């Protein structure tokens, strides 16, 4: 049991930032992202407890996080950027996040919304999460080829957008 705890907390030390960033740029809310990080690690701990082995802990964490985000988005209607602007949302509202961060968040969101959802995830995993093709393949279960094609197409769309 002690060994498991050590492995677990080391995984946290190594990957918490990455998982945070992964969640942050999907839910676009700092508090929610923090909750998701916590939930991801808690769920992972519970899984490890069952005695099931995990070969790649890092990929597993991403998978858990991704699934939690999907569950979350299914139940809650995600408010689009436009809807939020209508409501006149308070940019400094949640957890007093710094303005530069808020701006980046908005820019990223806008950029991502410009990409076809089919290609979005691949682009995001490669450029924002900084994962290799191999890792993305492990996490999503798709072939490296498919992922490569999607990334390429996604970037093309962005290029077209920028050139307009």
């Amino acid at each position, binding site marked *: 049991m002690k060994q498991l*705890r050590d492995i677990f907390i080391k995984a946290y030390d190594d990957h918490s*930032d990455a998982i945070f960033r992964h969640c942050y740029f999907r839910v676009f809310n700092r508090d929610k992202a*923090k*909750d998701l990080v*916590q939930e991801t690690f808690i769920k992972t701990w519970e899984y490890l407890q069952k005695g099931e082995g995990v070969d790649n802990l890092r990929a597993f964490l991403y998978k858990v996080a991704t699934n939690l985000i999907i569950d979350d988005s299914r139940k809650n*209607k995600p408010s689009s950027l436009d809807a939020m602007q*209508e409501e006149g949302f308070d940019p400094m509202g949640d957890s007093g996040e710094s303005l530069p961060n808020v701006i*980046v968040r908005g820019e990223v969101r806008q950029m991502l919304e410009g990409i076809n959802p089919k290609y979005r995830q691949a682009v995001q995993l490669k450029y924002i999460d900084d994962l290799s093709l191999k890792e993305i393949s492990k996490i999503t279960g798709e072939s490296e080829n498919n992922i490569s094609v999607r990334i390429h197409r996604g970037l093309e769309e962005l290029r077209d957008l*920028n050139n307009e």
Partner: protein
Amino acid sequence: MNKFEEIIKKTKQIRLNPEERSEIRARLSVIAGIPQTSRFSVFRFLRPIPIMAGFLIVAVTGGGVSLAAENSLPGDVLYPIKVSVNEEVRAALTISKEKKDEWSAQRAERRLEEAEKLDEEGRLDAEKIARLSEAFDRQTAKIALVEQRIELAQSKKAAEISRATEKLDAALTAHSRILAKLTDGNDNAGDALISASAAPESSFMMAAAPTRSFIKEEKLDEISIKAKRVAEKMIDNADQKDGIRMEKAKQFLKEAEDKFDNGKYGEAIVLFRQAGRAAQVKGDPIPVQAVKRVIQRLKD
């Protein structure tokens, strides 16, 4: 560097700050039973009684007691640990309001499940019912209730039905049987419940009857008929164009009528109410005041 690369570069600056990292790390350490070595105190976030108990339990038993408490029922020795330690610790661990609400909804459902299990074992008495319904009310009071949902839907903002209220709705439907039993005004249990319930507008009571006074004065079959009329009116007033929602509402209505025909008035009341709520969600909602007026008129 083009615009894309610029933005990507900036995303790297988003990370957990040291405080946030330690916060979460500390919480995870508690869950994994790892002794706290850093000076950062997780106790800051927990209220005095549960943390001391929680700390002692983990320190002495390695978390085994906490685990064992999870299946306990009111009246069992470990039950206080389940509610005042385990559940409180989990409540303290959540950060966002959303997740807090979801956990509250889950806790409310737990009270219903416990009531069901006690009933199966024949251990459900008036006192336990009162305690459980009190606890249920406390949890549901923390969540945005029907009134607030309706207000949200009325405003021009996108109607965000929170996951918590959906959870609660599902729980009320799934446990309609025990809810009905718990609010059956025909025996002592019902009286205990009425005196224990805080506000007449609590979710628990609303699920079973429009107002508290109904249960004391009238018989369940009559209340059931009134609930049916309210539900039908809500369905008529709702947005008929939303086919899926109307389907759902009418389904509840049919189930409720079935229960009514079989003499299961308590369950019928709960299901009539669900039908009304299903019709209301998202779209042209009926303000709570209007509903109350309708009920008042039916009473006369």
